[in-house]
C-alpha cells in the first residue's frame, strides 16, 4: 500500500527520546519517545491523558521538555519557542486552527512573510498566485481571495497545511485533526496527507479512531501513562493488539445499550421550525429510551438540539417536557425543567477552560448548590468530587484549571457537570468525540445506565456504529428535515446512510 515497505527504511527525520515533561507535581510525559521517518505517516496513540498532546507541544516548541534527547534530521535540537520549531521544518496542525478571520486565505498562508515587490510593498498578486499553486499541489479547491471568516474547520486545516508546505515543512504534526470533520472531509484530508507523504514529508498523526489509523498510517507508536510502550508496522499489527497495549487490558470496542423499560414520553417536539435552518421537526423521546439523531454534518441536528434547549430561537412549533411546555430561548428554564445539554464543542461551549475542575463541574447546578442563596465552597467541592469521581476524571486537583486536563478528561468533566443536574432528559451532542477506546465504552455504559434509570436520552452522533449500537430508535435528518425514523431492529448502516443522503422522493414513506 505504501512506499515504505522496501528493504531499506527511509532516513529518520525526527527523533525524540526519553522525554520528560512535568507541570508542577503532574508528570505529563515521563518517558516519551517518537521516531519519525521521511515519507511515512506515523500514528501516535494512547488513552486520554497518556501524554500525546504534550509530546506534540514539545515538538512544536510550546513546551520545553525537562529532559530529552532530541534530534531533527540527525542534528541535536533544542527549541526555545515555536519559532525555533518552525525554523527546523516542523509544522503543527491543531484540532482547531487559529486563522485570522478578517484576512483572506492567501494572506493567512503568508502571514508574516508576505512576498514583496520592488517597492517593498506586499505583492498581492504573487501571494494569490502562490496560494493558488499550493492548493493545486494539494489537489484542493479553495479560493485564495476569500476571507477566512466562516470557513469550515476542515478548510481551515487545509489552509494550515498549505502554510506548512509553503514553509518547506519536513515534518507535519496533526493532533486529532479529524475529530470535528465529516466523512467526506476526512477523505479529502487523507488524500492530501498521502500526497505529502509521497513527497517525503514525515507526518505524525494523532487520533482515537482506529479505522482512520489503520487506513492511513504506516507505523503506530503506543503511549501509556506518559511513557513509550511500542512501535509497530501498521500492516503487521491488529487493532486488538494496540488497544491492549494502550489500555493495559482488552476492551470491548462497543458497548451496546442494555434493554431498559421504556416509559412515558419525556420530550415532545412538534413542528419545530427555524426558517432556513430546519423545518417541521417532530420528535418524541420516552423515559428509558435512547433516540439517536443521525445525519450528515450540516443536516441541522445540532441546530435542532440548540433550539430545544433554548440556546437559539425558533420560529414555529413547540417543545414540551413531561407534558409541560418549555419556554423558548431560555436555557435556565430548560435546566430547571430537567434538560441537560452536552454540547459538541467542549472547549468553547461545554467548559469554561480557565475555571477550575470543581467550578466547572458545579456550574450547571450553581443554583441548587446554594442554601438560602449562598454557596459554601466546601459543599461545592463535595458535589464536584462526587461527580468527577463517578466519571473517574483524572486530574491533579479539583482546583486545577480544566484547561490542564487532557481532552478526554475534559469531556468527562462536561458529562459530570450535566449529570450533576440529575436531568430527566439528556441531550448529548457527539458524546465520544476525542475520547479513547476505554473511556468510550465507559461513556456508552454510562449512557446506557442512565437510560436504565429512566432518563430520556437524545444522542447526536456522526459515528454510525455508535448510533446503531446505542439507539432504540434512529431519527435521520437530511437538509433540515426528518427524512426517516428507523427502529432498532431495522437500523442497519445502509438504511441510515440512504436516509441521510438519498433524495427525499426515494425515501419510502
Amino acid at each position, binding site marked *: 500500500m505504501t512506499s515504505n515497505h522496501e528493504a531499506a527504511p527511509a532516513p529518520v527525520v525526527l527523533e525524540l527520546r*526519553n522525554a*520528560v515533561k*512535568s507541570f508542577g*507535581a503532574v*508528570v505529563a510525559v*515521563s*518517558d516519551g519517545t517518537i521516531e519519525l521517518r521521511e515519507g511515512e505517516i506515523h500514528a501516535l496513540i494512547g488513552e486520554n491523558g497518556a501524554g500525546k498532546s504534550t509530546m506534540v507541544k514539545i515538538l512544536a516548541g510550546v513546551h*520545553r521538555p*525537562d*529532559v530529552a*534527547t532530541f534530534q531533527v534530521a540527525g542534528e541535536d535540537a533544542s527549541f526555545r519557542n515555536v519559532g525555533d520549531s518552525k525554523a527546523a521544518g516542523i509544522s503543527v496542525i491543531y484540532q482547531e486552527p487559529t486563522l485570522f478571520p478578517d484576512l483572506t486565505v492567501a494572506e493567512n498562508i503568508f502571514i508574516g512573510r508576505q512576498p514583496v515587490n520592488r517597492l517593498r510593498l506586499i505583492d498581492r498578486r504573487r501571494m494569490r498566485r502562490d496560494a493558488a499553486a499550493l492548493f493545486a499541489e494539494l489537489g484542493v479547491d479553495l479560493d485564495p481571495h476569500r476571507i477566512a471568516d466562516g470557513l469550515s474547520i476542515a478548510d481551515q486545516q487545509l489552509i494550515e497545511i498549505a502554510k506548512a508546505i509553503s514553509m518547506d515543512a519536513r515534518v507535519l504534526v496533526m493532533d486529532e485533526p479529524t475529530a470535528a470533520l465529516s466523512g467526506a472531509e476526512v477523505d479529502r484530508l487523507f488524500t492530501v496527507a498521502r500526497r505529502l507523504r509521497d513527497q517525503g514529508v514525515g507526518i505524525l498523526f494523532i487520533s482515537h479512531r482506529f479505522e482512520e489509523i489503520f487506513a492511513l498510517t504506516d507505523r503506530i507508536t503506543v503511549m501509556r*501513562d*506518559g*511513557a513509550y510502550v511500542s512501535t509497530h508496522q501498521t500492516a503487521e499489527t491488529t487493532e486488538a493488539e494496540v488497544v491492549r497495549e494502550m489500555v493495559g487490558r482488552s476492551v470491548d470496542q462497543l458497548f451496546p445499550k442494555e434493554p431498559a423499560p421504556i416509559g412515558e414520553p419525556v420530550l415532545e417536539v412538534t413542528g419545530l421550525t427555524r426558517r432556513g435552518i430546519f423545518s417541521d421537526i417532530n420528535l418524541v423521546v420516552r423515559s428509558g429510551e435512547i433516540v439517536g439523531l443521525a445525519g450528515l454534518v450540516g443536516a441541522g441536528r445540532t441546530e435542532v438540539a440548540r433550539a430545544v434547549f433554548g*440556546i437559539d430561537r425558533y420560529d414555529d412549533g413547540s417543545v414540551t417536557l413531561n407534558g409541560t411546555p418549555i419556554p423558548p430561548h431560555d*436555557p*435556565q*428554564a*430548560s*435546566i*430547571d425543567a430537567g434538560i441537560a*445539554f452536552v*454540547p459538541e464543542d467542549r472547549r*468553547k*461551549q*461545554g*467548559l*469554561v*477552560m*480557565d*475555571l477550575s475542575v470543581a*467550578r466547572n463541574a*458545579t*456550574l*450547571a447546578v*450553581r*443554583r441548587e*448548590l*446554594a442554601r438560602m*442563596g*449562598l*454557596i*459554601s465552597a466546601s459543599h461545592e467541592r463535595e458535589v464536584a468530587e462526587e461527580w468527577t469521581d463517578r466519571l473517574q476524571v483524572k486530574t*491533579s*486537583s479539583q*482546583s486545577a484549571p480544566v484547561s490542564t486536563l487532557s481532552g478526554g478528561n475534559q469531556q468527562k468533566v462536561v458529562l459530570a*457537570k450535566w449529570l450533576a443536574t440529575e436531568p430527566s432528559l439528556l441531550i448529548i451532542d457527539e458524546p465520544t468525540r476525542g475520547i479513547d477506546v476505554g473511556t468510550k465504552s465507559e461513556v456508552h455504559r454510562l449512557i446506557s445506565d442512565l437510560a436504565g434509570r429512566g432518563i430520556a436520552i437524545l444522542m447526536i452522533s456522526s459515528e454510525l456504529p455508535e448510533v446503531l449500537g446505542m439507539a432504540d430508535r434512529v431519527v435521520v435528518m437530511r437538509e433540515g428535515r426528518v427524512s426517516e425514523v428507523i427502529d432498532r431492529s431495522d437500523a442497519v448502516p445502509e438504511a441510515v446512510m440512504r436516509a441521510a443522503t438519498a433524495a427525499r422522493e426515494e425515501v419510502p414513506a
Partner: protein
Amino acid sequence: MSTIVSPEKKAARPRWQNALLSRDAVMVAILIATIITASAMLPRFASPLTVGFLLIDVIPVLLIAMPMTLVIIAGEIDLSVASTAGLTSALMGVLWQSGQSMVTIVVLGLIAGLLCGALNGLLVAGLGLPSLAVTIGTLALYRGLALVTIGDDAVADFPVEATSFVTSKIGATGIPVVMIGALLIVLAYAVVLHMTPFGRGLFALGFSTEAAKFVGVKVDRTKFWLFVGTGVVSALAGIFWTLRYSSARSDNASGLELAVVAAVLLGGVSIFGGRGTILGVVSAVLLIGTVNYGLRLERVSDVVLIIVTGALLIISVVGPRIAEGVATRWRGRRLRARVSPTSS
C-alpha cells in the same frame, strides 16, 4: 512508569498552604508590612488621626471599586463612574439651592446614578456595544451634563449636620462612622461575588460568554444589572464626596475612574475578565491609600503619588511573571540534576 525519573509524587498541597500562597495573601501581607513600616518610620503615622483621614480618603475609591470589580470580572469595564459621581454632585448643589430637603436630595442623587448606570447597561447589554467605547462616551456625556446642571458655580452651604456626619468618628478610634456603611457595601459585594450562583455565573461569563450561556447565565440581563450597580454606587460616592468637602461642583471626583481601575487591577482582578477577589481589591485600595497618605505626611508632591501608584500597578503585573519564570527554571534544573547520573 519511567525508568529514569521517579516523578515528584508529592501530594497536592493542603488547602491552607494554597491559601497562604495565593495572590490575596501576598496582597494582605504587603499591606500589613507597609502599615508597619510606615508606623515605624513616620512618627505621626500611628494615630487615630491617621486612621480617620486615611479611611475617609479611600472611601470613594473603595466604594466604586466594588461594583467595578464585578464589571471587570464579567469582562467589561465602566469608565463613566467618576462622571456619574460628578453629575450627582452637581445635581445635589442645584437641588439644595432650590430648597429641597436633604433626604429628597440623596434619593434623587441615587436615582440619577441608577439612570446613568441603566443607560450604560442598555447600550452595552441591549445593543451589544463594547463597554470601553460606551463608557468613554458616557464619561464625557455625564460630565457634560454636570456642567450644564450647575455651570461653573460651586454650592458650598450644605447643612453642618450633614457635613459633620460624614466626617464624624466612632468614639476615639478615629474610624469614620460612614466606614460602617462602606463596609456593609463591601461585604455585600463580597458575598454576591464569592458566595452566590450569580457570582459563579460572573466568573464563567468573564472567561467565556458562550459557555456561560449553556449553563443558563442570562448574559444581557446580568451585564445590565452590573452597570446599574456601578451607577448607583458611583452616585453614593458622589454624595459622600459632596458632603465631605461641603462643595457641589461639576468637576468633583474627576479622574477618579483611573484610580479605581488601577486599584482593582492591583488587587489582582484580570483586565481580561474571569479572575479576581474582593479581598484582593480591598487590600489594594488600602495599600494605595496608605502609601499615598504616608508620602503626603512626608510632603511628597501629588505628581510623585501618581507615579507611585503607577509603579505599584506595573510591579503587580510584572512581579508574578518573574517569580513564575524563576520557579520554572529552578524546577527544571533540579530535575535535570537528578536525572543526569543515570541517563547518557
